[in-house]
């Protein structure tokens, strides 16, 4: 058991405001990063960058319930829709990520270190690509052969880049939420 840190009652509002600012700010930063390709600092592999919003959803839902995970997945999926195109929607893949992460954490077999986070992100990036491929294949705008070709070309790069850059999002956010929950006296 972790003892709750002492804090004054009037600082509760400030603390929650800070939390809101950090959540909104980090989501906005991830959304902007997903628009960039910076091969010079290793942020793009054959023209494909990390899936920042996926990393954010994983970080968010690793210590939360599936419902919260799904909700975050839907919200960030809608944001990604706004940044690219909403047909087919990105919400399905990311909501599934939130659901899976929410389920996983109850079984307690995840070690919360960089390696397991990177591995989880690696696997889930493949899943998100597969879901997108399924949607594009069903949508009728793309031929199945082209979709399959595209998945083969991009899924691995996306998974490698996402898992490589996952700690950049995971480490500071996780530190903050640990602190936040301790200050609130939860857990």
């Amino acid at each position, binding site marked *: 058991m972790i003892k709750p840190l002492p804090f004054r009652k009037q600082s509760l509002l400030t603390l929650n405001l800070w939390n809101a600012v950090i959540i909104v700010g980090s989501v906005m930063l991830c959304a902007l990063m997903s628009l960039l390709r910076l091969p010079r600092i290793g942020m793009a592999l054959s023209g494909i960058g990390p899936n920042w919003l996926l990393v954010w959803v994983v970080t968010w839902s690793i210590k939360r319930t599936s419902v919260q995970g799904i909700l975050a997945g839907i919200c960030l999926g809608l944001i990604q829709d*706004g940044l690219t195109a909403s047909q087919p929607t990105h919400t399905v893949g990311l909501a599934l990520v939130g659901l899976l992460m929410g389920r996983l954490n109850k079984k307690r077999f995840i070690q919360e270190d960089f390696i397991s986070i990177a591995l989880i992100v690696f696997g889930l990036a493949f899943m998100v690509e597969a879901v997108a491929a399924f949607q594009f294949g069903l949508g009728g705008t793309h031929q199945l052969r082209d979709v399959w070709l595209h998945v083969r070309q991009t899924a691995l790069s996306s998974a490698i880049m996402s898992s490589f850059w996952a700690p950049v999002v995971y480490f500071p956010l996780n530190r903050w939420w640990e602190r936040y929950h301790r200050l609130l006296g939860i857990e």
Partner: protein
Amino acid sequence: MLFLYRWWERYRLGLVLAILCLGGAWAFSRSQGVGLLEVFRFVSGPAQPDTAKQKQLVDAQTWQIQQQMADLEARNQALQKLLAQDEIKNKKAIAVAILSRSGDNWWQQLTLRKGQKDGIEVGAVVVAPGGLVGRVTTVSPNTSRVLLISDPTSRIGVIVSNSRNMGIFQGQSSKEAVVTFFDKDPEVKVGDAIVTSSLSRLFPPGLPIGKVKTLKLEQNYNPQALVELSVPISKLEWVSVYLNDQTSSLPKAVSSNP
């Protein structure tokens, strides 16, 4: 009722927050991310360094290509008795820097640093030194989003420059694309130029797209050719956007006529 009231008391805050988050994200999605792009445009400053030099280079190349195009089109018109000459005279373009790339791996898009305020409209044709790049799909006051020709949803009517064989061009999310010909036995060879056809409604005719790299004429259905795009889209930093002549006065306009 008491049960419902207790439930409400307990989950009130979470429910309100959840609805707020969902509503906000939905509104963002509906607005095509315009607000965030405008913020990004504002945060990333007025323009990148050595812009003057790059602009000069782009302008010079655009001018050169437009001259060549105007010449070719003029000759073509005489032969085909088309009355598109006014359009060529009035054709104007602005040089625009690229703000960002696509937000995922599936769509081939660009965001540009200029929008409605500079006279860019939905459907405007985007070119770069080398040929066609794409088409504007959404605009905000200071940014605009371009769907590239390398996107698989981009389908363009094209012709082989030498033999006038018609076909349909389709992007492949890479430097290469596929042209499917209508004729069973098209006169086409490796190295032939592919340009937009006069039947294309979205693009003006005669814009170069790429060169034929390999031929797959033994296809069962229709003969195909693999085309290498003439514009190195992944390395682009500047593009030119065509403007309609009814838009506002343009200090930086690059006219096709000297």
